[in-house]
């Protein structure tokens, strides 16, 4: 019996390797699903009050990484969460060590860590900078304390400003700030103030996300109960347009629907998703993509930890083969998110079909409606199309 199990697991492990094997360098995502407190809007895979599980989780992460021994070159590493900055310097170091053992990590790799401004200081950041992290993403979300309270963040605007100072002191020269707009009760003027204040903080990269209300989150609940006002979608569109106008006049180039960067500072890791290149996700609920297949780990911490700790067969949440027709649709949907748009000749070559002909009806409808433009062989979203991009994207899905 034991022998059978052993062989079976061996076999599964080989299969697992085969899936990811890719000829070019891949991006590596590491998910850290712990938070001091869950934010009011959050529907991501993260757990509060489970910090005691962190040591076990790191062990499981390292075991999962070992499944991929002998695989690829890594071009970027991204620690996302949750709150990766809840991990100690040693814990982060241990994971990085294992990554280096398993993969060949390109010297020029972008290595990012997401951090909550309420969890860090200069010493901590200096140590992780030394450990190899070269990009820091700070979830400041807003520069208005009353908005931070609505969102249920654990930090204040003062702490956010201080965190940026710590990061610079620690030697981080590639900094991202996350902001959320479209908040309940947030006026255009308040958003204007936040934008200008953010610009003065001088980060290299900005991610601006419109608040999306996810079911069963406390914020959603509060709006359902009408204890706080529902966000106004038109105001949200105004805020988005305002951000586009202001940021471009301060040297921030928009390169994706929600992302702006100073010259040469686009997030290389996230570009992998939009350019339909392969990536590997490690950790609970993490997603991986091989070009024609996407799979994700179980989102349950209590399942994930024992499985990988005990070398059992992985439990997938998503595990789908993506047929060629769907691959084309996904390439278009993800590619259109980028401001550079899609080079049609390139896509024709990759897909073996004439895209403009195949999607003639959709493209005609969307260009007429002013959401898409086709110029010089490039298809891209218009200014109006970006905040309405779902209306563009679903039309490209196969029937």
């Amino acid at each position: 019996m034991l022998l059978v199990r052993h062989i079976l697991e061996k076999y599964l492990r080989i299969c697992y390797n085969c899936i990811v094997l890719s000829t070019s360098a891949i991006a590596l995502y590491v998910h850290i699903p712990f938070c001091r407190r869950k934010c009011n809007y959050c529907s991501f895979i993260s757990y509060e009050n489970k910090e005691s599980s962190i040591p076990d989780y790191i062990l499981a992460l390292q075991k999962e990484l070992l499944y991929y021994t002998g695989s690829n070159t890594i071009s970027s590493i991204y620690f996302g969460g949750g709150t990766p900055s809840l991990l100690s310097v040693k814990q982060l170091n241990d994971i990085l060590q294992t990554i280096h053992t398993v993969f060949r990590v390109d010297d020029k790799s972008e290595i990012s860590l997401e951090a909550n401004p309420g969890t860090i200081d200069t010493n901590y950041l200096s140590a992780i900078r030394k450990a190899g992290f070269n990009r820091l993403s700070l979830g400041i979300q807003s520069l208005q304390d009353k908005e931070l309270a609505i969102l249920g963040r654990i930090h204040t605007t003062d702490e956010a400003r201080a965190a940026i100072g710590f990061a610079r002191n620690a030697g981080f020269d590639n900094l991202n700030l996350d902001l959320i707009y479209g908040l309940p009760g947030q006026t255009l003027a308040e958003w204007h103030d936040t934008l200008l204040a953010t610009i003065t903080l001088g980060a290299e990269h900005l991610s601006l996300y419109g608040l999306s209300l996810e079911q069963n989150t406390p914020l959603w609940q509060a709006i359902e109960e009408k204890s706080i006002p529902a966000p106004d979608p038109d105001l949200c569109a105004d805020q988005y347009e305002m951000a586009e106008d202001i940021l471009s006049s301060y040297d921030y180039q928009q390169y994706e629907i929600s992302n702006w960067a100073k010259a040469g500072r686009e997030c290389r890791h996230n570009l992998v998703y939009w350019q339909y290149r392969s990536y590997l996700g490690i950790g609970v609920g993490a997603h991986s993509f091989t070009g024609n297949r996407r799979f994700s780990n179980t989102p349950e911490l209590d399942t994930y930890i024992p499985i990988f700790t005990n070398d059992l067969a992985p439990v997938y949440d998503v595990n789908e083969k993506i047929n060629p027709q769907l691959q084309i649709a996904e390439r278009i949907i993800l590619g259109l998110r980028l401001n550079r748009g899609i080079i049609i000749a390139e896509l024709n070559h990759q897909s073996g079909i004439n895209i403009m002909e195949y999607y003639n009806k959709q493209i005609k409808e969307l260009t007429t409606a002013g959401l898409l433009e086709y110029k010089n062989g490039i298809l891209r979203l218009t200014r109006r199309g970006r905040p309405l991009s779902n209306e563009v994207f679903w039309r490209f899905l196969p029937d």
Partner: protein
Amino acid sequence: MDQSLIRNFCIIAHIDHGKSTLADRLMELTGAVRSDEISEQMLDSMDLERERGITIKAKAIRLNYKAKDGKIYRLNLIDTPGHVDFSYEVSRTLAACEGAVLVIDATQGIQAQTLSNVYIAMDHNLEIIPAMNKIDLQGSEPERVLQEISAVLGFKKEEVLLMSAKTGVGVPELLEQIVQRIPPPQGDNALPLRALIFDSHYDVYKGVIAHIRVVDGSITKGTRLHLMGSGTDMEILETGYFVPKPYPASELSAGDVGYIATGLKSVGECRVGDTITTVANGATELLLGYDPPKPMIFAGIYPTQPEDYLELREAIEKLSLNDASLTFEPEFSPILGNGFRCGLLGLLHLDIVCERLEREFSLSLVVTVPGVKYLVTKTNGQKITVINPAELPEPSGIAIMEEPWVKISIITPSLFIGALMDLTRESEGIYKHTEYMGQFTTGGELGQRVRLEYEMPLRSMLATFYDQLKSRSRGYASLDHEFIGYRETKLIKLEILVNGVTVDAFSRIVPPDKAHDIGKAMVVRLKKSIPRQLFQVPLQAAIGGHVVAREDISAKRKDVLAKCYGGDITRKRKLLEQQKEGKKKMKSIGKVEIPKEAFLDVLKLNQE
């Protein structure tokens, strides 16, 4: 059997006043069924009837009762439908009896429909045994209700039997009274056959089963019969009676109640109210005037999924085999696709038909707002009937327009008279008469019970009249109505344009002075139910091309998924797939995607 030992009777009662419970108790006491065989209310055979607490199809049960005089009597209990939509069937059922037990709820008193059924019974010279039910309940008001019965119906208090069908108190006394007070049948076995059809239903194996009361002569298996009203000839495959299960017998003779299996394919060929005689040496005179009810209201019934059209057609055809009052003709709506314009006896009938279609045939339906049949004489002299608003000619093309009117009777505690008078006025009702029902006041400050009589366009009853009546009277008022004929009217067609395109399914026929308000309400409601599009969408209400109300749905500006979290593209794609699926379920009209719910929302719109 000697006719002097036969008693044919029915039970007249308002919904929930206890008719079915009483029938169960009678069966139990006469030994037709053992008490452990009774599955609550055996007489109602369809699930639907049991759930709604009403009876759609009448049936008859033979009970053998040994009376105190030592003789064994044959009691035929004929069940009656309780709702005004089926008043024709009620009148035919009553015509098959010599007597009726009138059941009145001791907690509620006389209701409007009960009253109208009692009047029919009196017209047929039936012996009426009044019985007050539910005297065991707390909250029963026997004194008040007795007073009401005596004031309104003229019975002496001591004539009214007090009982509880639930506990059985008073039911043995009722059986004795049935024997003593209801006269035996007076038919003649020697005369040519005459039997009245008081109910019929379709059976897959035996064809149409007709429930009959033999008045003169007798029926035996194999005889060739003739239906005097419709002219149909048929052969009897089987005859018998219910005990309560069907029990074949060789003969039914004068005074008997039972069934015949005819082999006919549709109940339309063998309708309630017709008189049966023999082909050879038949009778010459019908028992009753043969005048089957005609549909009074019309509604479009469409499948939610267009591909279910053939299934819907098959289902309606099957249903109509069993429901001679249901008419249907194919109809095409540019918006809803292929469906049927169905004719029905009333709103309850419509409800029952839709529910049976959905339940028995697993269909999902879209039902348009019910309307009436208009008679229109065009300026060129041509006479047409209009059952679909889309077919109403332009005002300039109409010389005379007529619509059906009804007499309505409302019974209510006097406290609500003011509110109900407002309601009837808003509904274009014309006041006719007020009648106080006894001097007793009901419990609390509700006041005396009053019967109000109005005349009203049937059209006014089809929106929310009944719901309003109930809510404005805290549920106390009851309603009865009766068709009284067509009257001249001046109505116009209100059309709704979505992005410049007329949407036929939204058209409705309204009084000119209300057109603006109704039009405004409709576009306001539509603005709420149609999601924003990629462009601005004008919604207009128009009369003969002249816009009377307008709302605009501004163009959508934001629909974006923010974060592409940790490469979870699958979830994002699934959301987009849902969005695409959602669009598929919408109807595209003038480039505008309209969800099905929007149709229902606006069709159900309160006219006030």
